């Protein structure tokens, strides 16, 4: 196997194998997502809303989970090594920061796919939900994965310096982004008109708009989706590289054990 691929897969292997004996990690892909699904969908059905609102919430949850797991796995992988006092071994190995990011993102993507599959089955059984347009779902989820990866690059960059404090941020960031991006509502009706153009500069806003467009509650703008994703990804990559080199220079990566 190619050296670089093996190093990337090592990260995914570690994160996936850990689930077997780590109940917290297991709950992360089974318990919390299902509880979250029930909480939100029960609430929407209780309000007796139009089916399209329920479907918007379901689509939003599918996308949000994809984004969440990519970001979360990228940072938690590093944090767990830090807690285990084995982080310096990772940095002392030939793995590059890019390979760490790609490998951990892969395990995040696998977890995201697993939870999305559970959601699709459960929502079909409970609410008769079927995906209105598989292609649009695939594009939306793919770009939300990319957004999660970009977020991960930023939080990973901070994690080189701030270690477990950055882990807290990895929990907070997807929720803040979800709130700003209008996962479960229309940003045009909730946010002041002056703020909306800035919110539209987030790739997540564009991706969730695409998902919502499947049920007629959002507007897909493909150019903005690609453009914002590319710009933020480039910014995340540069930030991550800058922070890595700074951490290397200032000895933040250095403590063995």
């Amino acid at each position, binding site marked *: 196997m*190619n050296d670089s691929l093996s*190093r990337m897969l090592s990260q995914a292997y570690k994160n996936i194998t850990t689930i077997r004996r*780590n109940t917290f*990690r297991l709950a992360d892909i089974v318990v919390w997502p299902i509880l979250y699904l029930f909480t939100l969908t029960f609430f929407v059905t209780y309000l007796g809303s139009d089916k399209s609102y329920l479907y918007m919430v379901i689509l939003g949850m599918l996308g949000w989970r994809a984004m969440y797991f990519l970001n979360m796995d990228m940072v938690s992988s590093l944090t767990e090594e830090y807690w285990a*006092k*084995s982080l310096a071994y990772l940095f002392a190995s*030939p793995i590059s920061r890019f390979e760490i990011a790609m490998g951990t993102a892969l395990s995040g993507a696998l977890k995201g796919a697993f939870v999305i599959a559970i959601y699709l089955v459960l929502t079909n059984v409970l609410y008769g939900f079927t995906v209105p347009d598989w292609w649009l779902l695939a594009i939306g989820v793919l770009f939300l994965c990319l957004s999660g990866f970009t977020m991960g690059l930023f939080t990973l960059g901070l994690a080189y310096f701030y270690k477990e404090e950055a882990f807290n941020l990895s929990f907070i960031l997807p929720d803040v982004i979800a709130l700003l991006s209008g996962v479960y509502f229309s940003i045009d009706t909730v946010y002041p008109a002056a703020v909306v153009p800035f919110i539209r500069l987030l790739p997540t806003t564009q991706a969730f708009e695409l998902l919502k467009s499947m049920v007629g509650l959002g507007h897909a703008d493909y150019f903005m989706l690609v453009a914002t994703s590319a710009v933020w990804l480039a910014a995340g990559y540069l930030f991550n590289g800058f922070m890595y080199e700074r951490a*290397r220079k200032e000895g933040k990566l250095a403590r063995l054990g």
Partner: protein
Amino acid sequence: MEEAISVQNVFKDYRSRKETVHALNGVSLSVKEGEIFGLLGPNGAGKTTLISILVGILSPDNGSAKIFGKDCSTQARQVQEQINVVSGFSGAIGALSVEESLTYYAMLYNVGNPKETIERLLRQMDLYDARDWVAEYLSSGMRQRFFICRGLLNDPKVLILDEPTVGLDVESAIAVRNIIRGLRKEGRTVLLTTHNMFEAQELCDRIAFINGGKILSTGTPAELKGRLSGERVIEIHCSEEKCVVDSLRGLKGVTAEIKSAKLVHVKVDSYSRTRDIMRALADCGGDIYSVSEMEPSFEEVYLNAMRGGNDE
């Protein structure tokens, strides 16, 4: 023999808003291939900083550190493929078994035939029966052997051992020391840090004392002992200590002193006085049980170096 590690005039400062710490102040050292080289110094001496530079996770401010001719800062990837680290302070990734952990590290280094390599190392370190145990819960001794397994996975040419026996019981420490001796036989270069002077003297071909970010002295354990300035003492066990002291009175360069019952310490300006002392003792009326030169302990050598003595 090829130079495995070459450190030339390395400087490293840690800067914060409040202060600047000079961690390394022009460190230079050279380690030959196949050598066990000890780096000894108190906490905060600069050992970890130097190791971090060697493994490519810290950049020096000035100077160069090379392993087999590859720069540890600019060619970190190539260096990291040839080395590995074992630290006495590290931990194991929670929730992974011994075998799973080693599989993870084998993938990290893209080890060929990982299953066979892991099995061979586990058997070599007497851990094969514990392969399914969660690594985090191994006993200290087993855990250290597990870390050495991990350190050997990529068949490193240079192995850096950072206090590998810290916190181990006597049996486990002996086992680890035997493993380190085995590494020498395999032709690996080992850079060892330890606070255990006995261990350093026993294992190391050469030793460097470091303090305040500077190398104070380098040499074989025997050379370092030999450089220790100060008084030399001959110890005499006898039946009549007063008689011994009287016999030695008047000998040039010799001062005898009763230390306790049946024990006399004789300070000499040189061990060449031993012959004169033996002759003088022949006239002593009492029995002489033993006459021995008291070698300085390696701890004394170390402490003397830290106080600024023992210069090359």
